[in-house]
């Protein structure tokens, strides 16, 4: 269905090609994962396959892209939509209509389908992706996962046999991401060729047929899932599914299967002995025009020095809770000290011309010495970027600059909203390790249970705006309420069953190997 022959592309302002010599074929009924470190050219390959760069990009092309034997870049958009569907990372930026029906019908209308055929086709597509057959339902009311499924329906509505997706799981909670992957598997089983670019291997890998690895603009081959070179994945900084990673490491050390009794190191549970910084009493919050409360009856106390993870599904109220805890004063909230929140999109916190100015902004505003900014820059490893424009940095660097700029304000409370969203694993790990020593209370909202368990001293689980669990991480395994779209990672369960302390696969393997 898709054939890439020696495909290359160089952006107009670049001296080196973003991708070169890419050869890949995806057959009907096949689900192929294209993965690699940030900036390796995955998205460029996807856009070349979709014909988007051929039509709009003014860079230099080489090689040949064929979809069902035709070059998508040479086709008019209305013809192309019958061959290939494309879904991008952020569902919120792709929605063009106000209702489910209009959104799915858009590509059919572009193809000048007869109005009599559009209605039934819209219903069939909504059914196919597991959305309610309510074409008049507003797109605003959908969760992130539902929106992404709507985008898949819209992309395939005109009958495309090839579906291309660029990090569609980036903004989804584990349940939404698993649902989307199951949908993609079903579509592939029905004969659609699917090429998926994704970092979240833990969720994607079990569903795909083959994995194509990319690094520095070149494809290193596409192999069946079971033949994936895990060593090479680790070298590229990819986050492998924890248990698969551990098994591979222990096999290499001839220690798998590992059946011994646990090492039984006691889990460190730092006691919350600091002074109370924030306390809320029955805090509730409702957005304008919302039917229900985003936060309901939240009572809690945050103490100095705590590392608090806020877990929950998309729309459970995590960001709202962070915004309330760090936002303007309210009657139902008492707060001591300065709080700084880094938004989910860190770009919104970067407004200076250079990284250096960004770091110095807070200290200068508060008449603090410049050394505070330098220390924050060093802690987050951005001190070598001081003369660069923040907007020109990579996604991971921008996040670290935003966090360093927040840290330079010497906050009593530092809040991070979904720091893993759209970031690769290495970047987030480095940042969280750097923040472990930060002299402030750390609050972070995330879908990533593993990250929360390893970096938090306390976990709050939110469901529909209510706190359903407030406990130390070790208790999360035993007390996580049923029915929540949060999955305990298999590696965590494996460690817990064997009495091993939690950690990354590398840490656990090292402990086992050390006896």
């Amino acid at each position, binding site marked *: 269905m898709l054939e890439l022959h020696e495909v290359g592309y160089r952006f107009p302002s670049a001296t080196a090609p973003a991708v070169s010599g890419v050869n890949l074929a995806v057959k009907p009924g096949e689900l192929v994962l294209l993965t690699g470190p940030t900036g390796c050219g995955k998205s460029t390959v996807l856009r070349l396959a*979709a014909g*988007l760069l051929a039509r*709009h990009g003014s860079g230099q092309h080489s090689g040949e892209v064929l979809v069902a034997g035709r070059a998508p870049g040479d086709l*008019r*958009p*209305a013809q*192309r*939509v019958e061959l*290939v*569907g*494309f879904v*991008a990372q*952020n569902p919120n*930026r*792709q*929605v*063009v*209509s*106000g*209702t489910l*029906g*209009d959104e799915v*019908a*858009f*590509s*059919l*209308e*572009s*193809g*000048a*389908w*007869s*109005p009599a055929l*559009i*209605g039934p086709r819209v219903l069939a597509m909504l059914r196919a992706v597991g959305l309610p057959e309510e074409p008049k339902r507003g797109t605003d009311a959908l969760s992130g996962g539902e929106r992404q499924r709507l985008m898949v329906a819209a*992309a395939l509505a*005109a009958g495309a046999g090839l579906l291309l997706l660029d990090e569609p799981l980036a903004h989804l909670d584990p349940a939404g991401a698993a649902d989307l992957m199951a949908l993609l598997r079903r579509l592939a089983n029905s004969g659609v060729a699917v090429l998926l670019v994704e970092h979240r291997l833990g969720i994607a890998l079990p569903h795909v047929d083959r994995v194509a690895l990319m690094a520095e603009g070149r494809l290193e081959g596409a192999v069946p899932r079971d033949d994936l070179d895990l060593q090479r994945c680790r070298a590229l900084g990819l986050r492998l599914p924890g248990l698969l990673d551990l098994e591979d490491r222990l096999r290499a050390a001839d220690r798998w299967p590992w059946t011994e009794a646990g090492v039984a190191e006691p889990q460190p549970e730092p006691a919350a002995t600091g002074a109370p910084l924030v306390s809320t009493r029955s805090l509730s919050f409702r957005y*304008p*025009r919302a039917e229900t409360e985003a936060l309901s009856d939240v009572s809690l106390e945050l103490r100095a020095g705590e590392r608090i993870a806020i877990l929950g599904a998309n729309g459970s109220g995590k960001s709202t809770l962070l915004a309330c805890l*760090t936002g303007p004063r309210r009657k139902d909230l008492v707060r001591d000290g*300065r709080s*700084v*929140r*880094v*938004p989910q*999109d860190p*770009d*919104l*916190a*970067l*407004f*200076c*011309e250079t990284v250096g100015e960004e770091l110095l*902004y*807070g200290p200068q*505003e508060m008449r603090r010495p410049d050394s505070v900014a330098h220390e924050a820059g060093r802690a987050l490893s951005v001190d070598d970027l001081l003369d660069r424009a923040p*907007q020109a940095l990579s996604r991971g660097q921008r996040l670290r600059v935003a966090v360093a*700029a*927040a840290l330079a*304000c010497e906050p009593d409370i530092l809040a991070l909203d979904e720091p893993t969203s759209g970031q690769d694993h290495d970047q987030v790990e480095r940042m969280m390790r750097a923040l472990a020593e930060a002299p402030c209370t750390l609050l972070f909202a995330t879908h990533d249970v593993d990250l929360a368990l390893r970096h938090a001293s306390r976990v709050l689980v939110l469901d529909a705006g209510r706190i359903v669990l407030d406990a130390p991480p070790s208790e999360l395994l035993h007390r996580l309420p049923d029915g929540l779209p949060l999955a305990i990672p298999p590696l965590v369960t494996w460690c817990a069953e064997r009495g091993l302390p939690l950690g990354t696969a590398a840490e656990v393997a090292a402990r086992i190997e050390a006896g």
Partner: protein
Amino acid sequence: MDPRTRLALLFCVGLLAVSLDRPASLGLLCLLCALPLLALRVPPIWWLRGGLAIGAVVWGTVLSQGLFYRALPRLPLLEVGPITIWREGVFWGLIQSLRFVATLLAGLAVATSTPPDRLYAALRRLRVPFELAFLAATALRTVPDTGRTLMAVRAARAQRGRPVWQRSPWAWLRLELSMLRPVVAEALRTARSLAESLDSRGFDPSSPRSSGRPLKLAAWEWPVLGAAIALTLGAVGMRLLFVLYSSEVLYIPSLRPLYGFVRQWL
């Protein structure tokens, strides 16, 4: 309501706003334009903010026109030392500001209640050129997002520094301008995503499109539209006749009651 009906009503409001010349009638028009906004169920604080903004526009225009009105004849309304507020200027300022407010409220009502693709379809059906229709629909799609981005940037900045007003006007201005940088960057990213989304779903201005939900006026919309058009044309016609009479171009004695009505009410 069909988007074409909304656009037609908006056009009527625009014509009425320039035709009416009495504060009372313009005030009534403003109230009528504000009614659809009630359906938006915005929180009271937004009504308060909107009311304050409108009040500031009306007050500013009234005051400036009252102070700097130059046409003759003019009568002083208030004299404070060397400063004179002119009665005719105050009225003129009130009329001008109410015209602005009426069209603003009607525009807001249409913009907030019409999905961009429906607006685009309506504009194209009304034979508006593609570039203009697409520009309007895209602006409608992205303006609220841009507003939200600006608020998020301001909130993020506020947590890292002093309040904006605790600095010189020049530093304040520089800070406000610097905050546009992430807003523009975000707008560009959104524009790119939206363009990709439209392109990958076959949108092509040079190709014919069909519609899964063809534009169709409901039965009740026809009388509403008819009444609005008749009212607008009536007001515009009466205003034209009055202007011809007052500028001594055309005087028809049998229309004296109409001239009186226009002078009193329109």
